[in-house]
Each structure stands twice: as C-alpha cells, then as structure tokens.
C-alpha cells in the first residue's frame, strides 16, 4: 500500500498539493457552512410547521414553541384528515385538476399547431392575444365568469372550475407549445403529405408525439398551478363538500381557529401531492418554469 502511494505521487507535488488544497478546502467548507445555515433558516417556517404538527397546542401554549417537545402525537393528522375533511378536499382537487389539465393540453395543442404550422392573416394577432391573456389579473374576469356559470347552471359544480382553468391556462400553454412546435422541421410534414396523410393525422400522429417532452414539462407546471388555485375555488363553489384543498384549508383555519397543530398538519398534507409531483418530475417542473420565459 505505502509503496504504491509513494510511486504514484512524486514527492514534489506531495508537499505543494495539500498547501493549495487546504486554502481551497477552507473556502469550500466556508461556503458549505454558509449555505447550510442559510438553508436551515430558509426552511425554518416549514420545519416549524412540521414539528408543530406532531405536538399538542396545550403543550405549546404552556411551554412555548422553542421548548423541548414532551411527546409526539399523530392525532393532529388524524383530525385534519378525517374531521376537517382534508381527505375529501384532496379528492376534489384531483377531480378538478386532472380534467382541466387534459382539456388545456388538448385544446392548446390544436391552437399551437395552427399557429406554428400555417401562414394566415390572423396568425400573429391570435398569437399575441393568447400571450397577452396569460398576464390578465383574474379580477377582471371574476364577475362575468361568476354570472356566466350561474346562467349556465354551472355555479357550485366542479365543471365550472374545470372550464375556467382550461380556458385561462390555454393562453400560456398555446404560447409554450407554439414556440416548441416551430422548432420541428417542416420537411417531416412534407414527406407525410406526399404519402397522403390528412392535416389532422399529421397533427395527431406526428406533431403530438414530437411535442410530448414539452407537454410533460407543461403538464407538471400546470398541475401545480391548477392544484394550488384558491381564488376561482372560492368564487365558483359554495358547498364545503365540493371545495379543493386550498379553499378547504381556509375552512379548516376557521374551524380549528387556535389549534395550530391541526392547522399545520392539514397544510402539510395538502402539500403532499404537489411535493410528490415535484420530487419525481423535478426536471420537467424546472423545464416548465423556464419554458415560458425562455423566449
């Protein structure tokens, strides 16, 4: 062992390397210490919520938050899940989010295809309209959409939320997909046209499969956006049993007014779906975030 070490490292570098290395090493170590401290401070609110969710409010009220926990309990999660109906709210969130996601991806891939592949007079105006629409404040839509859902007997239904999310997010999805589809070389389609493929077949069998990576990134991002919507849910739903988890948490907050362990437990459970999506599809999530701003 020692002979090998001696032969592989010449004596000259042996003395020089550690000297340069230690300076760099201390710099590195400093950076890591700094980042670790910063990260812990950054995540402190989440860590605090996590610790709180396993304690009882009585104990925190008496001894304060920074006391050493006397005992850990899972009852807060149980209470949030069952009594505060977080399980029900979470189910509603999925019932709203999944169809909206399918709807917006399908419809915006149609419009994106038209805008990316064809030259026609209204092409750019329509594209600019979609781009501008993505930045509208929701408040400019609230009253008419509220009135419209009432007129169509959709008020207080999940379908109302599915429609408004599909419609609103279509702008952003069209914007992203159109820019992606423009990078697909036209020759692929010329070959298919020679083979007699219809326009719709070219869309469905060539463009859609080629766009899947962009769609995956978009879907991941849109999932968190729609899942985390709160405003539309409180505008268009009245029954507590229909509410998604964001609006449900507001109810829970009122119901368990001062019982912070149950509130934090509910908040943590509510984050699980998007957290799981984020952990497993992180690459897509990050891609999605940068897609819209890339151009």
């Amino acid at each position, binding site marked *: 062992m020692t002979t090998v070490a001696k032969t592989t490292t010449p004596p000259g570098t042996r003395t020089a390397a550690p000297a340069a290395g230690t300076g760099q090493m201390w710099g590195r170590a400093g950076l*890591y210490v700094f*980042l670790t401290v910063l990260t812990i401070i*950054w*995540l*402190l*609110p*989440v860590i*605090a919520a996590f610790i709180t969710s396993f304690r009882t409010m009585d104990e925190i009220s008496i001894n304060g*938050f*920074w006391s050493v926990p006397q005992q850990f309990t899972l009852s807060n999660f149980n209470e949030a899940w069952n009594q505060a109906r977080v399980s029900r709210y979470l189910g509603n969130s999925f019932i709203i989010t999944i169809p909206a996601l399918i709807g917006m991806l399908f*419809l915006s891939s*149609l*419009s994106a*295809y*038209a*805008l990316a592949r*064809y030259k*026609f007079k209204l*092409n*750019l105006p*329509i*594209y600019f*309209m*979609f*781009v501008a*629409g993505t*930045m*509208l404040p*929701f*408040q*400019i*839509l*609230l*009253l*008419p*959409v*509220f009135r419209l859902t009432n007129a169509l007997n959709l008020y207080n239904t999940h379908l109302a939320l599915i*429609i408004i999310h599909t*419609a*609103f997010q279509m702008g952003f999805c069209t914007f992203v997909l159109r820019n992606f589809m423009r990078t697909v070389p036209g020759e692929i389609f010329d070959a298919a046209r020679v083979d*007699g493929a219809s*326009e719709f077949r070219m869309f469905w069998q060539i463009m859609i499969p080629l766009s899947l990576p962009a769609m995956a990134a978009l879907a991941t991002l849109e999932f*968190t956006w729609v899942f985390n*919507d*709160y405003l539309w849910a409180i505008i268009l739903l009245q029954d507590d049993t229909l509410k998604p988890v964001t*609006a449900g*948490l*507001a109810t829970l907050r009122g119901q368990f007014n001062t019982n*912070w362990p149950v*509130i*934090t437990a509910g*908040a943590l459970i509510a984050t699980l779906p998007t*957290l799981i*999506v984020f952990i497993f599809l*992180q690459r897509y*999530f*990050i891609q999605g*975030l940068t897609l819209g*701003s890339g*151009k």
Partner: protein
Amino acid sequence: MAAALQIKKPVVRRRINWTPYLFLLAPLALYFVWIIAPTFYTIYLSLTNWNGVDPVPGFVGLQNFERLFTKDRTFSEALLNNVRWLVVFITIPTTLGLGLAMIFNNEMRGGRWYKISFYSPLVMSLPVIGLIWGWVYHPRAGLLNGFLQAIGVSSPPGWLGDRELAIWAVIIAAVWRQVGYVMVLYLAGLKNIDPSFVDAARVDGANRWQLFRHVVLPLLAPVTTIIVVISIIDSLRAFDLVSIMTRGAQNTQVLANFMYIEAFNNYRMGYGAAIAVVLFAISLVFIGFYLSRVIRDELEY
C-alpha cells in the same frame, strides 16, 4: 395517387386555407366566451351600480371611478400596498435569486439539495404558505416571537396584528416563495451564456467582480427584464396571502382583495368591477411592454 395529389394542391392554394381556422375553432371559441368577452363585460359593469341581483345593471357612468379616486380611503391604502409589494418584489427576490443562482451555477457536491430547498416553497399553494407563516408570526406561541423573547425582547411586536408591520409581514412570506422562482429563471439564463465570453474576459485579466458586473450581468439582461415583468404582474395579482393571513385588515388591503370584498362580500358588483378595471389598466402597461418585446422578436424572426 400522384394525380390526386396534383389536383389537390392548386385547389388548396387558390382559396383561403381554412385548415388553421378548423384547428383554432374550439380553442378560440372557449377563449372568447370565458376570457375575452368577460374582460369587456367587466369594463361595462364598472359603469353600472349592479348589485348581483338586478337583471339589468343600472348605468351610472364614471361615478364608481370618481368615488374610488376621490372618496375611498381603502382604495388608496390598497394602491399604496400594491406599490410597496411591487417595489419589494422587483428588488429583493431578484437580487437574492441572482446571488443564489451565481452560487449554484458552479458544480458543487450536494448543490442539488441546496437548490431544492430554495425552490421547494414554489410547490406549496399560497394558502399553505399563508397558514405556515401565520403560525411563524403568532404573537404569543409563534416561532418568531418565541425566539425574540428568548433573546430578551420583552414585548415583541404583534406582526400580523400590528397596523404598521402587517403588510411587510405578508410581503416577506410572498418574497420567501418568489426567490426560488427567480433563482430557477436565472440559473436557466446562466446556462445559456456562451462560456467563451467568460473565458475571453478571464484571459483579459478580469477579476470575479468585473466578470460578473461587465460580462455576466449584461448577458443576463433579457432574463432580468422578463423576471421584472413577471414580478410586477405577480405583485398586482397578490390576493391569496392577504386573503388567508389578514383578510385585508390591519392596513394590508391590496387591490385584488379589495375588489373581491366589495364585489362578493358587500355585493357592490359595479364598484368591484371598477376596482378590477383599475387593476387591469395598471397591468395593461406592463402587458403592453412585454407584448411589444414578443412582437419585436416575431418580426425579427
């Protein structure tokens, strides 16, 4: 086959090609009914005193706007708070996000986990963030005041219950979420920088600060512009945190929540519409700016 193709082509060329419109039919119809028409309808409603019940809203001209701008204290409070939010949003998260992106742009062991920590708040819904921070700010048992008392502050502030501090407390929670977003965008921007620029400057003897100030920062300018626009739009949209944390009490009103309260709690829908129109008009300035850049890009293409 070949004959059919030859007949087909000229026919398509001569007339208007309806194919793109067929693709656009369903998406555009949905978009017009649910997004475009409502935008104009709100502008109409802002000129009425609609209460949500009357079948035909009563026309009142510009009365709602007159009252907003001359008599309504809450409106000026909300406007001021939106400006505060906006100023903080375009400065603090942008600087912090850029700093973090500069650190994480270098390959480092475990860098991925640090990065995840900073952008994890992005996956939380704003109501969740509002609740978590509400607990941090809890006047007696919360993490923050518990800490302040432990280090000897005898009467720590009430945070969300304090008229002077409440809005800043809410904005801090918003910043906490925004930093990770800005960091992601800057990291993507840094990846796109051609390393030869950086190498060239290094060969010329530029130190780290000069490199950052005169090479990297100018190259990031387009990303910075987009981040500023996004930050402005987001700060005008601010609603969820205020609604969850204070409901607009303690001097924390913002336009979006003010509109919601007037329209859906007080049933002054015409008045609420007027607030929405003001919010829309402010947004329009920045939407216009962003759109002009998109248009420029398209025409250059």
